Structure formats: structure tokens, C-alpha cells
């Protein structure tokens, strides 16, 4: 546990430099994931629609397509509308992105590779990820554009509605693990993964997670057929890239969190323990990422009123019943 030793050593400028270097390293890894995550998404979507997807830039697989796209974004003119609220327009992408990167600190990737072993890790993740919505609403308002504002309002309503079932669905896991610490939760899945004991909780969590990520079928804040591009309609260049980056960093974080909570983190399947934990984590993580892409290409977007009704009238009661049953089972059988 290098991190533990570092955190408990006496503070010095060397430590600051080491932490900074680790932070930059993580940022680069995440940027690498985002780059190839987007490419994978486009490729998978292409195959599922009987297309090929990017295949021009960077060889037959389009390996440099996203890199080229990002370069184009960075070189674009940075426009700020005249009627926009200038300071907030500049601040909003930062408020949206910073929490996205902050949540990564709490995620345990393997028993050795993790940054902060926070006692309330799960709660920390959910709490901090809620801050991004403030950035989205701020940006939407600062754009001074009716489509942007509508998108921002939808983002806020959706975040509030789906955060409740998200929290409720993981309470079953917390009850069984007896801890909010993500390490303890993974440790509790040493023999049986929680997806087996908490199937209802897993389904509710998956739906609420997709809604929190603002991905299809719950991408109402940026429904292009009604709102042009939703909350980021006035953004371009690297400010827009920040919103996109925040979205994909959450994609990364949510896939990792699903792996940790329900798929046993770095624990191997029986008899396959010779494969290192990091590989297991990567495999499960990739399956979740693929699942999210699959959702995106399969489901049509829901209507705004259906979204609210589904969240409050279906997901929340199901999650509550799940908590009740879990508590009963734990009392009776464990």
C-alpha cells in the first residue's frame, strides 16, 4: 500500500510533487480511456447498425479518429455569445468537470491500485457526482438560450429524481456488506458477487446509473430532436470538450463503481485465480461499458413525463421493497 504510506508520512514538498504526478498520471489514463471509449462506442454502434464506423484516420480501425477530433476541438475558435453571462459561462464547465475527476479518487481498482481509502467511499461518490448538475444548470442559464435553459432544467429534474433510487438500490449492498467503504464491499464479495444475491438491486442500480449518466434512453437534457443540443448548445471548442469529458469520465467512474458494487471488483471467478486482479477488473469493467453502449443503441429515448413516472412510481418502490426483503433475509439467514 504505497498510497497509505505516502498519506501517513510527514508532509513535504516531495510528497506534494508525488501526489501531483500521480494525479496527472491518472488524468492521462482517464483521457486514454475517454479517447478509446468514444472510438469503441462509435465502432460498436456502427456494427450494431450494419455500418463500419470510423475507418479512415489511423489505419483500418480508425485508431486515431478521436485524437483527430479532439485536436480539432482544441483548435476551434473559442466563442462566447454576446448575451451570455460571461463569468458563469466560463466557470460552468469547470464546475461540471472537477467533481467528475474527484470521484475517481475513491474508486478501488485493485487491492493495491487505489488512491483514497475513504470510510464513506460509496456515499462520497454519490454526493460529489451530484455537484456536476450544478455546473450543467449554471452553464445552461449562463448561455442565455431557451434550449440550453430547458436542457439544464431537465438535467436538474432528472438528477434529483434518479439519485433517490440510485442510493436506495445500493442500500441492499451496504446492508449485506455492513460497510460504506468500497474496499470492504469488494472484500464481502470474495465468495459470491452481489449481482447474484441482489439481482433486483442491480437492475434498479443499472437503470438509475444510466439515467444519472444522461445517456440514451435517458438523455433528455441533450435531446437533439427537441432541444438542438440541450444545455451545451452555445458551447464550442474546448469548453464544450470539458462537458463531454465530464460525461465520459462519469461513464468510466460509473462502470468502475458497478464493477466494485455488484461484480466483485478484482475478485476472480472460481478456479481462475491465477489471472491477476487488475485483468479481472478490466474485463468486468469492459463488460459494463459494452452494456452501456448496447443500451444506447437499442433503446429509444423516453418522454419527459414517462421518465419522471418511471423513476418515482416504478424504480423507487421496487428499490424500497428490495431494501425490506434484504433486511429480512439478513436478519433471518445470516
Amino acid at each position, binding site marked *: 500500500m504505497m498510497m497509505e504510506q505516502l498519506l501517513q508520512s510527514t508532509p513535504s514538498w516531495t510528497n506534494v510533487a508525488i501526489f501531483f504526478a500521480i494525479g496527472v498520471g491518472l488524468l492521462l489514463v482517464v483521457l486514454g480511456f475517454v479517447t478509446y471509449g468514444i472510438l469503441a462506442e462509435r465502432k460498436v454502434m456502427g456494427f450494431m447498425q450494419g455500418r463500419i464506423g470510423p475507418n479512415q484516420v489511423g489505419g483500418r480501425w480508425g485508431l486515431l479518429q478521436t485524437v483527430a477530433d479532439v485536436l480539432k476541438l482544441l483548435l476551434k475558435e473559442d466563442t462566447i455569445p454576446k448575451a451570455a*453571462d460571461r463569468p458563469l459561462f466560463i466557470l460552468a464547465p469547470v464546475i461540471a468537470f472537477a467533481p467528475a475527476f474527484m470521484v475517481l479518487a475513491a474508486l478501488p481498482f485493485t487491492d493495491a491500485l487505489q488512491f483514497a481509502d475513504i470510510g464513506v467511499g460509496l456515499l462520497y461518490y*454519490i454526493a460529489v457526482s*451530484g455537484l456536476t448538475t450544478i455546473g450543467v444548470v449554471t452553464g445552461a442559464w449562463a448561455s442565455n438560450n431557451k434550449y440550453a435553459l430547458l436542457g439544464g432544467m431537465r438535467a436538474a429534474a432528472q438528477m434529483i429524481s434518479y439519485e433517490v433510487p440510485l442510493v436506495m438500490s445500493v442500500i441492499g449492498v451496504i446492508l449485506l456488506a455492513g460497510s*460504506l467503504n468500497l474496499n470492504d464491499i469488494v472484500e464481502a464479495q470474495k465468495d459470491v458477487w452481489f449481482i447474484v444475491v441482489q439481482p433486483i438491486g442491480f437492475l434498479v442500480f443499472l437503470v438509475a446509473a444510466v439515467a444519472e449518466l444522461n445517456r440514451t434512453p435517458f438523455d433528455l437534457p441533450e435531446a437533439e430532436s427537441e432541444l438542438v443540443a440541450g444545455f451545451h448548445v452555445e458551447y464550442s471548442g474546448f469548453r464544450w470538450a470539458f462537458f463531454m469529458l465530464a460525461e465520459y469520465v462519469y461513464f468510466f467512474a460509473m462502470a468502475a463503481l458497478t464493477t466494485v458494487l455488484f461484480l466483485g471488483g478484482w475478485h476472480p471467478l472460481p478456479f481462475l485465480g491465477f489471472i491477476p486482479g487488475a485483468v479481472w477488473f478490466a474485463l468486468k469493467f469492459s463488460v459494463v461499458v459494452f452494456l452501456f453502449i448496447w443500451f444506447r443503441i437499442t433503446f429509444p429515448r423516453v418522454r419527459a413525463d414517462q421518465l419522471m413516472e418511471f423513476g418515482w412510481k416504478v424504480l423507487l418502490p421496487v428499490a424500497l421493497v428490495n431494501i425490506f426483503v434484504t433486511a429480512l433475509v439478513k436478519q433471518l439467514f445470516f
Partner: protein
Amino acid sequence: MSGQYIAFFVLALIALGGGIFMLNLNKVVHMVVALVFTFVSIAGIYVLLSAEFVAAVQVLIYSGAITIIMLFGIMLTRHQDDGQSTGSPLRKAFALLGTVAFGAVMYIGIRTLDFGSEAVGLHDKNTEQIGIAIYSKYVIPFELASVLLLVALIGAVILAKKDDKEAGE
């Protein structure tokens, strides 16, 4: 000067700065964003006090609450308002007097305050300790608080329902 002291100083500065900005800015959304900084840095101060659970809940509750305040601020206020300062000099003088008096009282109150000896083992399993305390020692206040929230919820539903019926007639 320890790292904890520097962290406290920075967080306190951001919290106070957020508060001052909130009072002095004119647009509602600007004020709410200033409030975000105050609440988040207060959560940081909770972390310094080894109250991680309270810090996480603070952020969890207030990130939702602030978003709602922001929406209400956008929907229920006038946007062309330039916010001229109102009030006579006499009123301002009274406000100053009140602030100074409050500051003096708080200073005297805090300066001589004695918390007793510092509790040990605060950071050890503090979520579990909070849970045990709430469900064994403070279970009645906890239940009363939940009843209060339920009453507020039902009250809100009734108010919303009444409005709907009147609009229908």
C-alpha cells in the same frame, strides 16, 4: 504551521468569501453559485474534524438543494431587476450596529467556550458510531424528525392538490 492548519485556513477563506459574494452579488444565479462554494468548503471543514459521514451527507443534500434553489431562482424572480440598494441611512446605521453587536456577542461567547477534553478515536468507524448513537440513544428525536418530514411532505401534497382543483373549476 501544520498542513491541517493551512487546509482549514483555505477552506474558511473560501467559505467566508462565498458568503460575502452571495450577499454582494446582484443576480440570483450568481448568488447561488457563491453559496455552492460556501457549502462545499464547510464540508471540507467537516472532513478536517474527522466527520467524513457528515461531510458526505452535507454535499449530498446541498448539491440537490442548491440545484433546486437555482431553478426556483431562475423561474420565480425577475431577471431585468438591477437590484438598486434600498434603505435609508438610518436603517444602514442600525444594520451596522446590529452586525457589530452580533459579532461582539459571538466573539465573547466563542472565546471562553470550553469543549472539555478532545474526544479520541473520532475518525475510527465514525459512520458506525453515528448509526449506533442514532438508533439506540437518540431514537426518539430521530423518529420525531422523520414524522416532521412526513408531515411536511403530506402538507406539500395537499397544497399542490388544492391548487389543482381550483384551477380546474
